[in-house]
């Protein structure tokens, strides 16, 4: 496995990690930052549970709220990362650094960042659905978190091995090796002077090929305490909404007033089935595919090209897929060309597979 594959696996890992390893990494991170190890390490099953603990919910076996002391995230995470970035930046120059970032962490961060944002939003919605002051407090707490496995892109780009090789025994290394050790076994964690709160990784993570949260029959992201997020091709949807999808009718789709949810309903129901049941006729047909239009009251028309995958499936059939195109599209060729950012006149593949 390449280093990139390894870090991608870290970012997407699910299930309980090895707690002892994570705790050893946390203790090392404190020492690397020149701090005393935390007196107490507390585990939570999700970021939501961690924020609850840090908001005064008393964990099992503890009699008073956590005596955390001040956050030490800056010393443990921000400073080592900034220093490593600075070392690379001065060694490679600005252009070299940006090339290095593109070649290493950028792609991974592009798919991890929306996940991190979704988790933050999910925690805020669960704890402070309509209280602005409470929301601010929770958002600030969330910013105290070290992202654990979700820091994979940065740890990949900043090469955590170098200082471990150079200075294995000393506690004065950069600290990135410690962060990497935690990232390999745990989710988000909160370092404070006296206490570190660690969270387990999610129990489930479902994404589509583009890396977006995506699941039609259950939570796309779920944690052991029940904290869960639902999404369809990256679009957040309520859990109850997914329950309704199984028994969907074209009439219900037409009646849905939320345009985004209606789009999900249509995709889930299947454009083909919807068109068939509503007796639609193709708008245009040529060698590139077929153009369809669905008129929706109070919303722009859904216009789609139906395209046949040129490479047959193992069973000899050819998969058909549907792509939505702008409502102004008039021909199938214009629609397919648009999906590649081209005008209809110039779209002429010599070979397709």
């Amino acid at each position, binding site marked *: 496995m390449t280093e990139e594959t390894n870090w991608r696996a870290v970012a997407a890992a699910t299930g309980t990690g090895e707690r002892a390893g994570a705790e050893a990494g946390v203790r090392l991170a404190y020492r690397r930052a020149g701090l005393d190890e935390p007196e107490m390490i507390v585990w939570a099953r999700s970021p939501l549970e961690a924020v609850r603990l840090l908001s005064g919910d008393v964990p099992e076996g503890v009699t008073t709220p956590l005596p955390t002391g001040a956050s030490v995230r800056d010393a443990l995470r921000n400073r080592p990362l900034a220093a490593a970035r600075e070392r690379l930046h001065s060694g490679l120059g600005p252009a070299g650094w940006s090339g290095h970032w593109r*070649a290493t962490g950028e*792609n991974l961060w592009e798919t991890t960042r929306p996940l991190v944002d979704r988790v933050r939003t999910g925690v805020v919605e669960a704890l402070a659905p309509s209280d602005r002051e409470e929301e601010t407090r929770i958002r600030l707490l969330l910013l105290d978190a070290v992202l654990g496995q979700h820091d994979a892109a940065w740890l990949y780009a900043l090469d955590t091995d170098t200082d471990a090789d150079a200075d294995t025994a000393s506690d004065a290394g950069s600290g990135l090796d410690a962060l990497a050790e935690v990232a390999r076994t745990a989710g988000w964690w909160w370092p404070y002077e006296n206490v570190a709160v660690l969270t387990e990784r999610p129990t489930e993570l479902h994404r589509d*090929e583009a890396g977006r949260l995506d699941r039609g029959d259950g939570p796309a992201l779920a944690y052991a305490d029940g904290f869960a997020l639902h999404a369809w091709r990256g679009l957040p949807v309520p859990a109850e909404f997914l329950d309704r999808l199984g028994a969907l009718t074209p009439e219900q789709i037409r009646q849905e007033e939320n345009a985004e949810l209606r*789009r999900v309903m249509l995709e889930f129901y299947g454009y083909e089935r919807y068109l068939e049941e509503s007796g639609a006729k193709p708008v245009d047909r040529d060698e590139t595919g077929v153009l369809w239009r669905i008129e929706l009251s109070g919303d722009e028309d859904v216009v789609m090209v139906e395209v046949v*995958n040129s490479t047959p499936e193992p069973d000899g059939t050819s998969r058909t*897929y549907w792509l939505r*195109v702008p409502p102004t599209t008039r021909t199938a060729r214009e629609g397919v060309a648009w999906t590649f950012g081209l005008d209809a006149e110039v779209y002429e593949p010599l*070979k*397709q597979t």
Partner: protein
Amino acid sequence: MYRQGDVLIVPLAEHAVPESAHDAVSEPRDGRGRFVLALGEVTGHAHAVVGPGRLIREAGVFGPMLLHVPEGARVVHEEHAAISLPKGWYRVVRQREYVPGSVRIVAD
């Protein structure tokens, strides 16, 4: 112009190649020595270029990208037939889909 699934590879005349591309830094090759044009997050399947040359990213994670293959190359994918590219410059475009108010990348 060649198409492999959701990736379109469009020949680019020598004079249409942006000046900046001639000395731009190439994207790195993957662990198997290939240029990855698009990677499936879940399956790990990739549209990948095998052969000498350079891959230059113009802007953004999803491209477009410029591909230079001075001796020709092959484009491979786990689920699509391979495509032979004659030598030259190409622009690589990912397929996109219309979403009211924006566009999103297609991932097959």
